[in-house]
């Protein structure tokens, strides 16, 4: 028997589909041929992974998870009643009202501030005075580094 027959009939042999003389010859060839024996071992090991995969433990919590999922799906697919629509409309209305009140309050306060500032002109600091005051805060401007350098000399 040639190696080719063994190579092309390994799965049939593993599954017991080769019988009689062919089976005997197959087995005898494996005894004689080291290469085919090694190859057969590897192929049968890989093929037996199917049997190992079939031995699975079912999850005992499967139904609980499934039940939860179906409940979630049913909740999602429930038709919208009038109540949520009404609630959403109410929320929009409330938000609009808050914004409107805010704008109104801003306008009122703004107009009052303008009137007060016009009335008390003497309290207002001019731009010139304001910027003149701020220059003293800038040390670089009042005491430049060149001044120190010159002073040391």
């Amino acid at each position, binding site marked *: 028997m040639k190696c080719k027959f063994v190579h092309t009939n390994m799965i049939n042999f593993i599954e017991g589909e080769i019988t009689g003389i062919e089976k005997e010859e197959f087995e005898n060839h494996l005894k004689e041929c080291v290469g085919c024996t090694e190859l057969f071992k*590897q192929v049968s090991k*890989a*093929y037996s*992974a199917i049997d190992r995969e079939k031995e699975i433990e079912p999850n005992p919590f*499967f139904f609980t998870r*499934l039940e939860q999922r179906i409940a979630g799906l049913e909740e999602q697919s429930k038709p919208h009643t009038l109540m949520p629509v009404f609630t959403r409309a109410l929320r929009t209305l409330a938000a609009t009202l808050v914004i409107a009140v805010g704008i109104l309050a801003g306008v009122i306060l703004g107009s009052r501030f303008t009137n007060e500032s016009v009335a008390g002109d003497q309290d207002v600091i001019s731009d010139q005075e304001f910027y003149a005051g701020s220059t003293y805060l800038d040390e670089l401007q009042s005491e430049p580094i060149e001044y120190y350098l010159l002073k040391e000399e």
Partner: protein
Amino acid sequence: MESSELIEKIKNNDQEAFRQFVDRYYPLVLRTCVGFVHSLADAEDLAQEVFVEVYKSVGRFRKESKISTWIYRIAVNKSLNFIRDNKKFSFFSSIETLLRKEESGALESNEDVSSLEKDESEKVLHKAIDSLPKNQRIAFTLNKYDDLSYKEVAEIMDVSIASVESLIHRAKKNLQKKLVGYFRNY
């Protein structure tokens, strides 16, 4: 209780009947899904999808086929859709696996080496099964993973028994070619 009785009760929103139905068919569905996706976690998720579909479409079930045939069809379709949708992510997941292997470093004990060899031979088989043409893959998986007869496979696939014989014969030939080809160069 007969499965057909359970179906009638599920149609009337009987939760206990649905529980019994799931208990009866869950192992079958799980095995089918594992046969297609080769991952228990993914198969669990798929089994959920299958029973959600059963729950949704039980009202449309008209007893034209056997209940098991109907469930097998749903399981096969869900599995094939899952494989199709996940094909695009396989490239990235293979990179991730490679990186994880590098991070874990060299294996020391013999036990680790043998488990790696087992994983390798499983991977080779999975790759060989995954590369089969669609119908060969369905016929082979239903026959080998679920131990279904050619007649049952023919009913599920809606083809003749002769076609199933031919599909499984060709699937085995292809698998053998791939496995022998791989291990000869190993």
